[in-house]
C-alpha cells in the first residue's frame, strides 16, 4: 500500500501504459491485502529474472509484439509536446490560421495511434502475463503432487497455499511493471532528452537542475521509510499473531475468563503499532508533497528563466510550452523508479520462493522396475528395518516380521511408538534408513513407486472426501470403474443403504471436506473407494478411531469384507477391533517388543497383557 499512496497523486496523468492503482483488478489475496509492508529483498535477483524471462519467452511472438507497441506508444508520448510548441510558435503567436488545422489533425492522428497501440499493448501483455502465471501455478501444483510426504510434514498448508497465491500475485505485479514500464521509461527519458537538447541546450540544463534533487529526496525518504515500515511490520506481525491465536482459541479464552487479559495484551501491541505506523505513514506520505513541490519549482524555473530568455529573444513561447511538458515527462520515470523497484523486488522475491519449490527433488528421481500390470500376492517381509528422520533420533529400530498373503497384521502400542511409520515405509512415503522391506520377495526400493502404491490401499483416520458427487468420490479408487462397479463396491462397504437414502443418491454433491456427511458415512465412502481399488495389501490406519463404537460395530462387517483375501495392516487403539488378527505386533519406542496372536500375547503376560487389562478393567 505505501506504493499506492506515494504514487497515487500523480498516477493520474502518467504515461498511458499503466492503470491507476485503485482500478487494477484485485488479484489473489483480494482487496484485503492492504497491509502496508516493507518489500522483501530478493536474494539472487539476476538468476531469478533470467528464469522468469525463460517462462515469458515461451510466448516470444506476443512479447515482441508487446515491445513494438510499447515503443510506438512511448514515441507518441514523447513527440507530442514538441508539436504543441510548434503549434504555438508557428500558428498562434503569429496569428496564422492556415496550417493549424492540418497540424491539429496530425496531432489527433498521433494521439489516436498512441492510444490504440497502448491499449493493444496492454491487451496482448495481459494475455502473455496471465498465461505465464497460469503455467507457473500449474507447474507449482504439479510439483506439489510429486514431492515426498516428508515435505508436507514440515510445512503448513497456509504456507504452501500462499506460494500459489500471494507469491504468484507478487510476480504478476512485478511483471506488469518491468516488462513494459522499463522500456517506456527508457524511450521517454532518452527521447525527451534528445528532443530537449535539440530545442534549447540552456533550457535543457535548467530542467535537469531539479533531477538530482528528485533523486536525493526519493532516496532519503525511501531509506527512512524502509526503516519505519520495518518497525511497523514487526508490530503488525505480532498483533496479527495475537489476533489469530486468541480468536482461534476464543472459546478457551472465554471458558478461562481471560477476555480482559487478552484485551490488555492486545491494547499494548496495538498502541505500539499505532506509534510506529503514524511515523511510517508520515514519512512515506512526504514523497507526494515533496515531489509536487519539486515539480512546481521546476515549472517556475522554466517559466521565469525561459520567459526572460524569450524577452532576450533567445527562445520562443512555444518552446517553453514544450519544455514545461518535457520536464514533467522527464522527471516522472525517475521518481517512479523507487516505486517500481519495490514492486520488482517483491516480484522477484515471490518468484524466488516459487522456484525454490520447483527446484526441490521429487520422490520420483529414481525409476524402479515396473510391474507391467501384474498384481502382487501380498507377502510382506520386514528385515532389520530401521528408520529415522534425523540420525540422532531413531523412530524405528530393527523391526522384523513376516506377513503371508491374506493375513491380518495388527499394530498396537502407545502414541509415538512407530505404528504409523511402519505403514508409511511400506508405501514408501518415507525411505528406510537401513534394512529391507520386501513384497513378494522383491525389495520395494527396486519397484516403481506408483506401481507399488497402486497395490497398497489405504483407509486413513481422517476420511478424505473432496467436493464432487459421491459417485466421483468412490470412483477415485479406480478411475475407469463403471457405475455398476461403484455401486457394488458401495454395497460391499455397507455404504449403499445410506447413499440411496439421500435425496439425490449417488449424485449427491459433497461440500469441501464432506461436511454434509457424518464422519461414519465419510469413512464408509473411503472404504468403498478402497474396495474399488482392489489392492493386494490394505492399510487401515486408525480408520475407525473417531467413530463411536456402536457405529463402528455397524461398519465392522464392511471392514471384514474389505480385508477378505488381502494382506491387511490394522492400526487401532481399541483392542476389540484387532483381537482376531493373525499376528499382533506390540510396538514400543520404535521396536516390535512382542509378536504373536492375541492368545499367545495374553499368555505371555507382557506389555500387551497389561494394555489389554487396563482397557477392560474398571477404572480405579
Amino acid at each position, binding site marked *: 500500500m505505501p506504493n499506492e499512496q506515494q504514487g497515487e497523486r500523480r498516477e493520474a496523468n502518467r504515461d498511458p501504459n499503466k492503470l491507476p492503482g485503485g482500478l487494477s483488478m484485485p488479484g489473489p489475496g483480494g482487496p484485503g491485502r492492504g497491509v502496508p509492508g516493507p518489500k522483501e529483498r530478493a536474494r539472487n535477483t539476476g538468476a531469478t529474472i533470467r528464469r522468469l524471462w525463460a517462462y515469458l519467452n515461451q510466448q516470444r511472438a506476443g512479447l515482441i509484439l508487446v515491445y513494438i507497441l510499447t515503443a510506438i506508444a512511448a514515441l507518441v508520448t514523447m513527440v507530442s509536446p514538441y508539436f504543441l510548441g510548434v*503549434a504555438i510558435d508557428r500558428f498562434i503567436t503569429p496569428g496564422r490560421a492556415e496550417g493549424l488545422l492540418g497540424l491539429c489533425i496530425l496531432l489527433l492522428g498521433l494521439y489516436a495511434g498512441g492510444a490504440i497501440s497502448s491499449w493493444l499493448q496492454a491487451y496482448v501483455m495481459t494475455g502473455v502475463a496471465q498465461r505465464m502465471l497460469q503455467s507457473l501455478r500449474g507447474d507449482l501444483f504439479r510439483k506439489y503432487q510429486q514431492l515426498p510426504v516428508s515435505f508436507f510434514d514440515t510445512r503448513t498448508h497456509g504456507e504452501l497455499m500462499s506460494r500459489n497465491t500471494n507469491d504468484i500475485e507478487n510476480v504478476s505485479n512485478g511483471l506488469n511493471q518491468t516488462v513494459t514500464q522499463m522500456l517506456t521509461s527508457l524511450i521517454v527519458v532518452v527521447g525527451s532528452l534528445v528532443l530537449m537538447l535539440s530545442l534549447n541546450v540552456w533550457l535543457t540544463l535548467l530542467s535537469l537542475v531539479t533531477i538530482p534533487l528528485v533523486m536525493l529526496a526519493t532516496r532519503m525518504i525511501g531509506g527512512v521509510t524502509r526503516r519505519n515500515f520495518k518497525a511497523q511490520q514487526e508490530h503488525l506481525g505480532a498483533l496479527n499473531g495475537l489476533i489469530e491465536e486468541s480468536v*482461534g482459541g476464543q472459546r478457551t479464552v472465554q471458558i478461562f475468563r481471560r477476555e480482559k487479559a487478552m484485551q490488555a495484551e492486545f491494547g499494548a501491541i496495538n498502541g505500539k503499532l499505532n506509534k510506529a505506523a503514524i511515523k511510517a505513514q508520515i514519512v512515506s506520505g512526504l514523497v507526494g508533497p515533496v515531489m509536487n513541490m519539486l515539480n512546481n519549482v521546476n515549472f517556475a524555473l522554466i517559466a521565469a528563466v525561459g*520567459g526572460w530568455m524569450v524577452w532576450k529573444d533567445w527562445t520562443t513561447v512555444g518552446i517553453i510550452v514544450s519544455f514545461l511538458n518535457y520536464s514533467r515527462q522527464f522527471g516522472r520515470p525517475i521518481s517512479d523508479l523507487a516505486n517500481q523497484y519495490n514492486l520488482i523486488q517483491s516480484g522477484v522475491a515471490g518468484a524466488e520462493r516459487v522456484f525454490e519449490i520447483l527446484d526441490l527433488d521429487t520422490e520420483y528421481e529414481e525409476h524402479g522396475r515396473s510391474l507391467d500390470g501384474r498384481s502382487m500376492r501380498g507377502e510382506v517381509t520386514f528385515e532389520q528395518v530401521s528408520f529415522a528422520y534425523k540420525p540422532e533420533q531413531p523412530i524405528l529400530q530393527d523391526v522384523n516380521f513376516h506377513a503371508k498373503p491374506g493375513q491380518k497384521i495388527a499394530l498396537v502400542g502407545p502414541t509415538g511408538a512407530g505404528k504409523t511409520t511402519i505403514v508409511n515405509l511400506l508405501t514408501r512415503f518415507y525411505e528406510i534408513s537401513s534394512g529391507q522391506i520386501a513384497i513378494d520377495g522383491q525389495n520395494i526400493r527396486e519397484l516403481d513407486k506408483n506401481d507399488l502404491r497402486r497395490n497398497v490401499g489405504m483407509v486413513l483416520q481422517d476420511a478424505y472426501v473432496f467436493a464432487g458427487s459421491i459417485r466421483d468420490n468412490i470412483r477415485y479408487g479406480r478411475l475407469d470403474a463403471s457405475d455398476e462397479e461403484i455401486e457394488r463396491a458401495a454395497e460391499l462397504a455397507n455404504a449403499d443403504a445410506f447413499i440411496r437414502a439421500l435425496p439425490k443418491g449417488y449424485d449427491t454433491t459433497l461440500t469441501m471436506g464432506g461436511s454434509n456427511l457424518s464422519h461414519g458415512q465419510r469413512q464408509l465412502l473411503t472404504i468403498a473407494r478402497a474396495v474399488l481399488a482392489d489392492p493386494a495389501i490394505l492399510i487401515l490406519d486408525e480408520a475407525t478411531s473417531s467413530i463411536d463404537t456402536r457405529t463402528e460395530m455397524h461398519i465392522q462387517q464392511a471392514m471384514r469384507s474389505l480385508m477378505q483375501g488381502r494382506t491387511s495392516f490394522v492400526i487401532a487403539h481399541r483392542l476389540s477391533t484387532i483381537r482376531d488378527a493373525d499376528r499382533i505386533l506390540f510396538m514400543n519406542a520404535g521396536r516390535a517388543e512382542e509378536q504373536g496372536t492375541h492368545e499367545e500375547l495374553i499368555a505371555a503376560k507382557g506389555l500387551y497383557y497389561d494394555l489389554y487389562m487396563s482397557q477392560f478393567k474398571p477404572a480405579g
Partner: protein
Amino acid sequence: MWRLGKYLKPYWLPALLAPLFMVLEVCMDLMQPKLLQRIVDDGIAAGDAGEIQRTGLLMLGVALLGVIGGVGCTIYSSIASQNFGRDLRGSLFGKVQSLSFRNLDNLPTGTLITRITNDVTQLQTFVQMLLRMFVRSPMLIVGSLVMAVTINAKLTLILAVSVPLLFVFLFFLVRFSLPMFATVQKRLDGVNGRLQENLNGIRVVKAFVRSDYEEERFGEVNRDYTSVMTRGMRIMALNMPVMTLILNISIIAVLWYGGALNRSGDLAVGELVAYINYVTQMLSSMLSIGMILTFISRAKASADRVNEVFDERPDIENPTHAHPGNVKGGVVEFDHVSFGYGKENGELALHDISFTVQPGQTLGILGATGSGKTSLVSLIPRLYDPRSGEVRIDGTPVSELELSSLREKVGVVLQEANLFSGTIADNIRFGRPEATDAEVQRAARSAQAHEFIERMPEGYATRLGQKGINLSGGQKQRIAIARALLMRPAVLILDDSTSAVDLTTESKIRGALEQEMGGTTKLIIAQRISAVRGADLILVMDRGAVAAIGTHDELMQDSEIYREIYRSQVSEGSEAYA
C-alpha cells in the same frame, strides 16, 4: 459505513486540519499556470523584464508554500487515520471477546481474523485517502474549471463536451468491471479451494497414485480463473488509453479554437498556455475519480463486514441481579432442559433432560457421535442457554449466577486442546495466572503431563509455538487437562479430552482424578465404556434424549442400548471367536 465515523470523532482536529492543509496545497498548485500567463502576457509580450523576475520569484514562493500544505496534510491525515484504525481495531477485538458461543458459531474464526486485520487496515487506508486524495482531486477539478472559465468562457464549451464524456465512460467502465471483480474473486476461491483440498488429502492422492487426475482437476480451475482474469484486465486496460485520448483531443480542440480566438483578439497567447495547463490538470484529476470510486466500494465492503460483527448481540449476558450465593458444593441439576442451536422453534439438540449429580460424584456420559453429549455439558458453564427448563448448580439457576464466578468454578476441557504461544507453564497457568510453580507441577502430575514436560530440554519453560504446534495431540490434551485441574473447580467437565492419549496413560489420569479431585463433581464424556465404568452414574444419550441412566451394573441389566455399546467394545472379539 458512515456510522464507523464515530471512531474518527476524537480526532476531529487533525481530521479537520488535514483537508485544510490540502486546500492550501491545491490553491498553490492552481496559481502556477495563472502566474505563467502573467510571465507570457505581461512580461514577454509587454517586454517587462522586471515583471518576469518578480513573477518567477513569486512562483518559487508559491511552490514552497504549497509544500507546507502538502506536508501538513500528510501529518494530520496520518495521525487521524492511524488513531482511527487503532481505536476501531481495539473496539472490534473487545467486541469479539464479548461474543457468546452462539455468536462464534455464526462467525467462523477465519473470517473474524480477517475482519480484525485486513478489513480494519482497509478502512484505515480509506480514511487516510479520504483526508488526502478525496479532497485533492475534486478540488483540483473544480478549481481548474473555475480558473479556466475566468480565463475564457467561450473555450469552456469544449469542456462542456469532454467532461460529461469522461464521466459516461467512467460510469460504464465501473459498471462492467465491478461484477467482473466478483467473478474473479469467486474463481480465485475455486483455485484456492482445489489446492487446499489437494493438500489436505495429499496422502490419499499419493496412496491412490492420482496426481494426473488431480493436475487435470486443478488445470480446470486454473484455466477458468486465468480466462476471467484476462478478460477483466483487458477491460480495465481500456481505462488509461481512452481517458488519455479524450484529454488529448480536448487539448487539440482548445488549441484550434483558441488559435481562432487569438486571431480575433479575444485570447492572449499566455492565456491560451495557461488554459491548456488547467485543462490538463482538471482532466487528469478526473482519472483519479475512478480510483476513488473503487476505493469507496472496497471500503464499504470492509465496513459492512466490520459492522456485522458489531451488530452481533451476545445472547449470554451477566444477570442484572446476580445471585449472591457462590458455587461451593457442586450439585449439578438438569430440570427438564431442552436446547437447540438454531432459532426458536428450530431443531432441538436436547429434549427434556433431567438428572442430578451430587458433589464429588462422577457422571459418565456415553452416546453416539451427534447424540448431544457436548451440547449437554456446555449448558453448565452457560456457553449456551437452554430453550426451556433450568440448569442449576447448588440449587441456583446458572443464569442467575455471575458469569465470571460461574466459569471460575466450572472447569471445562474441550475436545480440541487449544494452547497458546508462551511457555508450557504459562499455558497451564492460563486460568489462574497467580498459581505457584508447585501448584502447576501438581496439576501437570495429575494430568500425566509432568513426565514428558520434564523430558523436554527446557522443561516447564519450553516455549510452545502458535497453537502448541510442537506438541503431539496427546501431549496437548494432557496440558489442557492440567490447565483445568489447576483451577480446582467445583465442577469439572472432560469432553472426550483424552481421545489422543493412549489407554495406559488415560487410566492413570482417571486414577489421579479420583485421588486429587475427590470433592469435585466430575462429568466425563467418553467413547469407551472402560473410561466410565467405575463412575457413580452413567448417562447414555441417544438422539438428544436420555436413553438410560444408572450405574454400570444397573444399565447392563436394564438398558439394551448400553448393552449394545458394551458388546461393541468388550465382547466383540469373543463374538468373532464364537
